[in-house]
């Protein structure tokens, strides 16, 4: 009953539709960027005389990977943090939470229903984004093998090559892995949401804190801080695009991501359980 109600409210909030529209717009802009770049590489203004690139370097799989990478680090966490931030704080502000808890239902159940639906939303959003990126890549750019080079997206430290079929399997593996990554900003924003009385404040704080932590984790001068930030492991799914997947390192990073997600969820549940109203 609660799950159906929450699902209906999520749909009516229009947040999923806005997220999908923004991601589609992002893909369109990426596609324009790919075409203008390709044009500049082939019609003059080419200074790189010793390029490693060749005609088959940029293809649909490269497009999908670039689009997903940048979308993942800059867009998806914002939508996810918005979802988490709006959950409890939004209901508190509108008084819906008080009405919900007036029913014979435990706070824990309400909490986990909200978290579960938001997590499902993350999983579907990641899958949709990956799928649409691949389809757009296939239709607009054309497929081929996936070549990766050191320095590009920080994916590899040596030149590597994945055959098309192998690369598609890796994209499939990345779907659940990237979804798991997003559980961290989701649980983090849910925790903030349990403290806030306004959805706008909760979302604003969650998104800005995520961006601060992401920037700190990216700049390698702060390497001593990195192990303690969940954003350091956000793109652990990149391990699945290596020629030889280092499973022990990948699973270790995956455990850290889930550890942070469990930690923030525990903090959020504690606050939700013990607060008044």
């Amino acid at each position, binding site marked *: 009953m609660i799950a159906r109600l929450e699902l209906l409210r999520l749909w009516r909030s229009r947040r999923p539709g806005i997220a999908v529209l923004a991601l589609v717009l992002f893909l369109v802009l990426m596609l324009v960027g790919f075409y203008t770049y390709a044009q500049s590489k082939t019609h003059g203004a080419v*200074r*790189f*005389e*010793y*390029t*490693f*690139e060749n005609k088959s370097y940029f293809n649909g799989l490269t497009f999908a990977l670039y689009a997903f990478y940048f979308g993942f680090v800059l867009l998806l966490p914002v939508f996810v943090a918005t979802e988490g931030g709006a959950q409890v704080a939004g209901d508190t502000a509108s008084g819906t939470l008080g009405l919900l808890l007036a029913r014979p239902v*435990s*706070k*824990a*159940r309400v*909490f*986990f229903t909200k978290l579960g639906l938001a997590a499902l939303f993350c999983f579907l959003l990641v899958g949709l984004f990956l799928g649409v990126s691949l389809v757009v890549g296939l239709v607009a750019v054309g497929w081929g093998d996936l070549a990766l*080079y*050191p*320095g*590009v997206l*920080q*994916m*590899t*430290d*040596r*030149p590597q090559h994945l055959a098309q079929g192998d690369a598609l399997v890796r994209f499939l593996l990345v779907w659940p892995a990237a979804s798991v990554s997003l559980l961290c900003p989701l649980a983090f924003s849910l925790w903030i949401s349990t403290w806030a009385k306004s959805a706008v404040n909760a979302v604003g704080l969650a998104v800005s804190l995520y961006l601060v932590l992401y920037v700190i984790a*990216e*700049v*390698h*001068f702060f*390497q001593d801080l990195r192990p303690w930030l969940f954003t350091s492991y956000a793109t652990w799914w990149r391990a699945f695009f290596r020629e030889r997947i280092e499973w022990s390192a990948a*699973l*270790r*990073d*995956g*455990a*850290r991501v*889930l*550890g*942070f997600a*469990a*930690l923030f*969820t*525990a903090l959020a*549940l*504690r606050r939700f*359980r013990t607060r008044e109203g």
Partner: protein
Amino acid sequence: MRSGVIAEGVLWLLAAGLFVLGADFGARDIGAFEPSMRDANVMRLVTWNVGGAENGVPHSMKEEHVPAIADALARLDADLVFVQELVDGAQLRRLADALGRDWTAWRGRGDCGVLTRRSDVERWGPRRVRNHAGVLWPRDGRDLVVLALHADAFSAKERNEAIGESHAALMAQAGHAHVLLGDLNLDVDQDKKSELFSDDLHADVESYNVLAATLTDAALGKGPTAEPDRRLDYVFVSRELEIVAAGPWFGRRVGTMDHHPVVVDLRWR
């Protein structure tokens, strides 16, 4: 209420368990180079930018650093030493004198120089590249071609052209194996935001990859070679050579020097 307490307890335990699973208890040994005795068939090459920076201003090799540099090179007992950021040929000769009478030295183009005790080493180098020093070394009946380069520190496009021309000239030179080394002034290592240091990261990525496509980056994963925490000095070797050991030798730079010597031990396959 009770179910919430239990769920919270489970979450705390889960978080603790996952962090333990994710902890890396392995020793952090990146395998940097430590000089050791080597077999007679192993060739040792060194590249070292012996300049530095003081209060943010770069400088060439300082006279006061010569004894420490000579001491480190004497301990390495390398076959071929390539140095960058020399003031002039006289300074290079003073460094050779500090190493001993049996060492000879010559300048390449620009601020690069070569030091060796091998009498059969010949000079070589492409005309178009500004800062370089190259050698041809007949060893065990085969010819090793080596080119050391000091690429531009401030322009990625200058680096791109110098590296491309050096690579093309090196591979065109007849020999059984090829080595390109030196201070390439580019850093495309994983896990770093390299665009903070480059005016054109794309050009640097291309520069690195044109080398990596045909040669092996011998000191890959062995740590930074320069301050602050940057990998700027490289040794790229062709497939005919087996890399016995390679990496920066830490703890050798003194005073305001900002690079570590990068050492590679090689033998014919």
